[in-house]
């Protein structure tokens, strides 16, 4: 352990240095301490003292232990990485430091029980696996078969959270309207493991990813389409490919393909000013900015406006990197800034395409004076499928 004395002197030691070096793979070394990361990190906008990302990188280089809190603030939004002139994989380094913190048991209260829930129940919410399909009770969504065009992967939040279940139902509505043959894994759908990865449990996440790769291979999955960009990122970048492998897509990408192929046509309309909030895990982390906009632009009546910070410069909602499971005090929530940007852009609807973003933005929305509705791209599309804007979600009768 590196030691810090009252006069500020820090004593470095080789053992800690070696340990840090091994955990981070030495990836912090290219950092030349310019400070761009600290300056771009959104924490600087909501707190007096910004998150000292540059210091974290220096400490990673030298093997200096963290005080505790700052390591867990990072939402893995990736904007610092995007701007870093040295290409330092800052988020990966912070995750590595988190993994060391687990070993030393310097972990924020509440996180172990989230991981135990993933381990025991296959979801981070400690909810029963048998209730995983309740979102679709009246939808008759079938089990996936290898002949299907794709596997629809719900993910834990869309499976269990009532609010996000509506998004899932809307996605189903869109797929059915386009005549897509698809299925789900039903009650046996596993967790994607992103929560574990984000919290720095890299080994556990790798274990989950490997099991999922085997499951996909065994079930003959060629294309997996996710509701959450977090699951998408996990399948796209952190899950191994076995046999012939599989293609991972976020649902907006799949819907955009359907739109381009003329298979998904909105015959109704959605006459509103809509601003799109880019989820970090779809945008910056995976470079997908166009697909959700393609879907929105295909909706008659929708007037798309851009937020002040959008696409690669988008401001994070604040829930990534495990922050969905850590309390953020009032006044420090990025989503508060984001809904104000939406109000400034004159948006009536703030659209996004991530369960975590929806939850955060929706909670912040009452803070702006004008009415601001937070909707998922799929919900807007589903509402515009039929003339009259008949139905938001897929229903049994509408099938």
């Amino acid at each position: 352990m590196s030691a810090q004395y009252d006069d500020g002197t820090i004593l470095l030691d080789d053992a800690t240095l070696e340990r840090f070096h091994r955990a981070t793979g030495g990836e912090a070394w290219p950092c030349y301490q310019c400070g761009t990361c600290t300056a771009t990190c959104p924490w600087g906008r909501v707190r007096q003292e910004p998150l000292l990302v540059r210091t974290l990188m220096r400490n990673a280089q030298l093997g200096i232990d963290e005080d505790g809190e700052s390591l867990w603030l990072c939402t893995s939004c990736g904007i610092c990485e995007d701007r870093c002139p040295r290409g330092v994989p800052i988020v990966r380094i912070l995750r590595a430091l988190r993994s060391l913190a687990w070993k030393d048991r310097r972990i924020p209260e509440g996180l172990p029980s989230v991981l135990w829930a993933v381990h025991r129940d296959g979801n981070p919410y400690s909810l029963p696996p048998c209730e995983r399909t309740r979102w679709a009770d009246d939808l008759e969504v079938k089990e996936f078969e290898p002949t299907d065009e794709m596997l629809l992967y719900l993910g834990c939040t869309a499976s269990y959270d009532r609010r996000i279940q509506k998004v899932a139902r809307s996605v189903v509505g869109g797929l059915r309207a386009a005549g897509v043959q698809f299925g789900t894994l039903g009650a046996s759908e596993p967790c994607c493991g992103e929560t574990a990865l984000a919290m720095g449990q890299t080994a556990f996440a790798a274990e989950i990813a490997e099991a999922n790769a085997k499951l996909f291979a065994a079930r003959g999955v060629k294309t997996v389409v996710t509701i959450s960009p977090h699951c998408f990122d996990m399948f796209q970048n952190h899950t191994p490919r076995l046999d012939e492998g599989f293609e991972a897509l976020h649902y907006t990408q799949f819907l955009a393909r359907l739109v381009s192929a003329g298979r998904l046509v909105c015959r109704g309309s959605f006459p509103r000013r809509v601003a799109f909030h880019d989820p970090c895990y779809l945008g910056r982390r995976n470079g997908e900015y166009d697909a959700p906009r393609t879907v929105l632009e295909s909706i008659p009546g929708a007037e798309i406006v851009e937020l002040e910070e959008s696409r690669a410069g988008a401001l994070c909602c604040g829930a990534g990197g495990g922050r969905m499971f850590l309390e953020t005090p009032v006044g420090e929530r990025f989503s508060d800034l984001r809904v104000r940007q939406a109000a400034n852009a004159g948006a009536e609807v703030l659209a996004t395409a991530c369960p975590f973003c929806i939850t955060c933005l929706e909670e912040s929305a009452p803070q702006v004076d004008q009415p601001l509705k937070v909707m998922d791209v799929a919900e807007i599309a589903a509402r515009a499928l039929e003339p009259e804007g008949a139905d938001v979600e897929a229903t049994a009768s509408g099938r």
Partner: protein
Amino acid sequence: MAASLIRPEEAQRIWVWLEHDGTSLEGVSLELLAKGRELADRSGEGLVGLLMGHELDSLADEALGYGADEIVVAEDPLLEVYTTDAWCDAAAQVVLEKKPNILLFGATPDGRDLAGRLAVRLRTGLTADCTDLEIKTDEPALMLAAEVTGFGGGVAAIIACKENRPQMATVRPGVFRPALRRSHGEEGVQSRCPVRIDPGRVRTRVLERRIGEAVDITKAEALVVGGRGVKGDFGLLETLAGLLGAELGASRVAVDEGWIEKDRMIGQTGSVTRPKVAIVCGVSGAMQFTVGIMEADTVVAINSDPEAPIFESADYCVVDDLFSILPPLIRELENSR
């Protein structure tokens, strides 16, 4: 390893050391009773809860209802608060008298302290900080296999204690689901095991015990919970809570608005509570909230919106304005006093 003081063939039953604060059992003890019950049923063994302390009558009655076949009570004035010497002495006497086959502790500060000392005293092994327990019924003397992994470090290992008895383990809190209260008639029996503690051997004296002000709603037996719907006024809820002996709880919105302290927040980034009853007023029922009341025995929801998702998580649904429901309820409770 030293020879066991208890022979495997004379060792019997699965024991759980029941930790408590004098009025209620710790969550991890309920978790161990649930897991112990499962292991007991699988192996055809009995399940025993060991309750130690001073003046335990009501707690002993309470402990009977969580699935143990027997609650063994060991009382002594020197056991009023936890000290390593007194508790280890007393526990060793009970164990040598009753000869448990398996003895489980919560991996709490006191549980870890006691189990370590006791294992040495009893010349047996201790598997610390387990995350899963399995019983091998094919072994003649019912072997306990304890898994040690870690969300918090360490490598996975399966550890068994082959020859020495009892087979002891401390188990990490939060790994198993807690036992639910059984209905009357399904309770176990109670017995006493006298212990003699030599005050001269107790090297610590507790001079004064002070308990901090902070509320811990995770231990509340009854909760009255408010959300945005209370519109800044927790007065009615506080009166109701007072009449019911309940604690106040809140949704994040109510905390954000500054209507109530932060340590009363329930949910994903608040506390996960396990009350017998929760009366939830003016809360819509976002999943980030409901995960914090999933383990409640009975949920009564009062909400003016019949479509509010909270009703899906409730046993009793009251569709009405909380400001018209609560006053007559409070009056009724006051009159019945």
